[in-house]
């Protein structure tokens, strides 16, 4: 590189995406006049094969030694062009990408202003690239194990897929059993498969798989490290029953001093009761009891005959059990933490929590489940079977007051609930919808089938559910008041039970999980994928993938598909065995270092050591993540950051302003 820079500038039209707002030929003419620029060109799509060929050809024929591409965001195509530049025989770090699409053409209304902004940014890029140095990408070995967070259907499917490939998986679930929300459902749409029959074999497969370590009743509390080598701390809450000894005979539950089940069972959403020692549901995995310390007399008051302990033939009950922390090393992490159903108390006009017999859809699922509190036949509070049921769609979805987005699954599950309620009770069923949204394989057909079955479908957003009767027929009923927008008048429909089709929201602690893994969330709070189309399960944090409803509302087939995709991405990473690390590390110029050691305490990664003999700081490159905090802090300007050297950034600043 002794001959000085010979820079090639490539300005992309991106079809009309850039060309429509930026005068690209003008930017090219301008770029050609800049110092060090040998060639400047315009091309329709720089990222296409012919676009990339253009760069390679120019490097060959014009002897270019530095490349600037002005196109989209480096988040999208920096890797693409670095590879092109490397293929052309140059060091990939002698390249700079100028963002004139997301950063200019898409955000600027005025063409002249956009063109001037693009020119300024190109000038900054050209001046920057002239000072850039060749760098080598370092590779690090990758730990082949994978962590899956969350044991719902997405987590289960991802864990099994990875385990089946021969890799080791650790599956961490917060609840005492895996299964997630799918375990609560009776049937799944549109095929009306029995949910348990398709889910429980997968749950058992997780338990029996030699490559899966399952930690239930546990949470990930800390994540350190980075792609390929994460260090994860898992806290195992005490189950008070030793999983290694318990054989699942459940004698202890029988023997509990509480004769009756009197505590709300979380799995049944409080609709059924359990004892302080319980299994959440009969198909739970692992099928080992758990003791709730808030309900157990001994754990709460220290006084109890502890009949459960004496009843256990294997001495598996350990009331002195404490929470313990484990540290795991993994190479990749799949986040499948699921969703939270919308709390309909936020829509008080629908009477949830104040009017009896107004239930959420998830509660309706339990009422319809043969293992649920009413053994599959929905019943009212008084024990009778409803003769008319209203299902209100879009509760907490498509609503400016709560969530603006569509929860995607509610139309279909409401139709399914309508079918099941009709089948089990013979009741008249009324569905109240805004728009019927049934895109999906076999979904529209299912809708047609429901119409043939005689479900009543009324278009209109329900105004209120009330027990104030205006006529004899309404006495003792829940009255649904709605404007029927197809018939064009307000109707009052008396029913015995109201099911609220609640939408899907991010988990209550999604923000904590986001921080744990430095993910990002969209405005609704769901985790954001790296690219909505081309990287739907990757995240901005390398090595962390997302699957299922934690990324946005989705049904079971979509969750499973995404889990498979996340598993494949994780496998592609760990199976390769090595990971490339960006060479943006900080470096110390020993001769300038005064040995003050200010930088040592500032480094968040303990990557800086002090060499006592040389009396100088030394940066351990494998530990340095390239944030650059120490560079700024050094009072002797002895530290600099590769690729973001102070001189390089200053040149870019001067360039955009020149």
């Amino acid at each position: 590189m002794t001959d000085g820079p010979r820079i090639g500038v490539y300005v992309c039209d991106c079809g009309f995406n850039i060309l429509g707002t930026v005068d690209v030929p003008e930017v090219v003419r301008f770029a050609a006049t800049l110092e060090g620029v040998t060639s400047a060109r315009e091309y329709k799509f720089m990222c296409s094969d012919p676009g990339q060929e253009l760069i390679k050809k120019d490097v060959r024929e014009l002897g270019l030694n530095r490349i600037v591409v002005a196109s989209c965001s480096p988040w999208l195509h920096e890797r693409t062009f670095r590879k092109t530049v490397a293929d052309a025989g140059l060091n990939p770090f002698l390249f700079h990408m100028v963002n004139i699409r997301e950063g200019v053409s898409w955000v600027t209304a005025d063409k002249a202003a956009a063109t001037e902004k693009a020119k300024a940014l190109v000038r900054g890029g050209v001046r920057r690239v002239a000072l850039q140095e060749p760098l080598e990408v370092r590779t690090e070995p990758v730990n082949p194990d994978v962590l899956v967070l969350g044991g719902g259907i997405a987590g289960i499917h991802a864990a099994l897929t990875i385990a089946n490939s021969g890799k080791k998986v650790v599956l961490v679930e917060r609840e005492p059993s895996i299964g997630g929300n799918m375990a609560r459902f009776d049937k799944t749409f549109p095929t009306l498969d029995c949910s348990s029959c398709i889910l429980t074999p997968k749950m058992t497969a997780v338990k029996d798989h030699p490559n899966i370590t399952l930690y239930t009743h546990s949470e990930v509390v800390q994540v350190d490290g980075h792609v390929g080598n994460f260090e994860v701390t898992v806290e195992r809450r005490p189950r008070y029953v030793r999983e290694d000894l318990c054989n699942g005979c459940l004698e202890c539950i029988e023997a509990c001093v509480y004769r009756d089940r009197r505590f709300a069972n979380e799995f049944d959403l409080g609709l059924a009761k359990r004892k302080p020692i319980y299994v959440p549901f009969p198909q739970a995995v692992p099928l080992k009891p758990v003791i709730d310390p808030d309900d157990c007399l001994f754990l709460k008051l220290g006084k109890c005959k502890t009949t459960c302990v004496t009843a256990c033939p294997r001495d598996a009950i350990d009331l002195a059990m404490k929470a313990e922390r484990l540290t795991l090393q993994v190479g990749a992490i799949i986040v499948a933490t699921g969703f939270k159903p919308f709390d309909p108390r936020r829509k008080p006009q629908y009477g949830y929590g104040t009017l009896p017999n107004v239930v959420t859809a998830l509660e309706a699922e339990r009422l319809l489940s043969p293992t649920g509190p009413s053994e599959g036949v929905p019943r009212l509070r008084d024990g009778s079977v409803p003769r008319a049921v209203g299902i209100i769609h879009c509760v907490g979805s498509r609503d400016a007051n709560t969530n603006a987005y569509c929860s995607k699954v509610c139309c279909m599950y409401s139709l399914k609930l309508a079918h099941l309620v009709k089948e089990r009770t013979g009741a008249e069923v009324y569905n109240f919808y805004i728009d019927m949204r049934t895109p999906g394989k076999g979904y529209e057909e299912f809708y047609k089938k429901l119409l043939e079955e005689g479900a009543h479908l009324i278009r209109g957003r329900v105004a209120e559910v009330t027990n104030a009767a205006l006529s004899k027929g309404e006495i003792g009923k829940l009255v649904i008041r709605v404007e029927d927008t197809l018939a064009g008048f307000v109707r009052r429909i008396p029913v015995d039970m109201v099911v609220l089709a609640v939408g899907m929201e991010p988990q209550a602690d999604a923000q904590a999980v986001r921080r744990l893994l430095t993910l990002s969330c969209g405005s609704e709070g769901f985790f954001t994928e790296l690219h909505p189309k081309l990287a739907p399960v990757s995240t901005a944090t390398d090595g962390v993938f997302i699957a299922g409803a934690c990324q946005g509302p989705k049904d079971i087939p979509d969750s499973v598909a995404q889990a498979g995709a996340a598993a494949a991405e994780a496998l592609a990473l760990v199976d390769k065995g090595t990971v490339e690390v960006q060479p943006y590390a900080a470096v110390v110029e020993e001769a300038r270092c005064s040995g003050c050691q200010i930088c040592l305490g500032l480094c968040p990664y303990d990557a800086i050591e002090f060499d006592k003999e040389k009396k100088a700081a030394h940066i351990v490159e494998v530990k340095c993540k390239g944030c650059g905090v120490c560079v700024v802090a050094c009072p002797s300007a002895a530290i600099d950051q590769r690729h973001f050297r102070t001189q390089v950034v200053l040149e870019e600043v001067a360039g955009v302003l020149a």
Partner: protein
Amino acid sequence: MMQATVQEARFEPRIVAFFCNWCTYAAADLAGISRMKYAPNAKVVRVMCSGRVDPDFVLEAFRSGADGVLIGGCHPGDCHYKEGNFKAMRRFLLLREVLEDFGIEPERFRLEWISASEADKVRTAVDRMVGDVRKLGPLRWKVG
């Protein structure tokens, strides 16, 4: 016609925006993807972390003719590098005082926490800064 003349005469502030790669730069990308429109005055310089923004960068920007400097980083607690944004904040507060001593109004130097999803905050932060600096007029900073 009147309006056109007024617009021509209008002072267009030159702003340099140092955006961290992980939050604010990604938010600016999202603003683009969402086709939000905002003032073209801010020229973005990407850094890996707001903690890499050297006071020298800011001084160089003012010296090279910037009328304002904006730093965008992850929200406190959200830094991709754990705590670089806290370092940025401490330096920012100190540097802003020093700049004030040199006659540079605090409105010309700002720090904003903008997460990757807050595209709208990029738009409002840039538009507000451009508006405020426009009111202040060009920075006439005599160097050396």
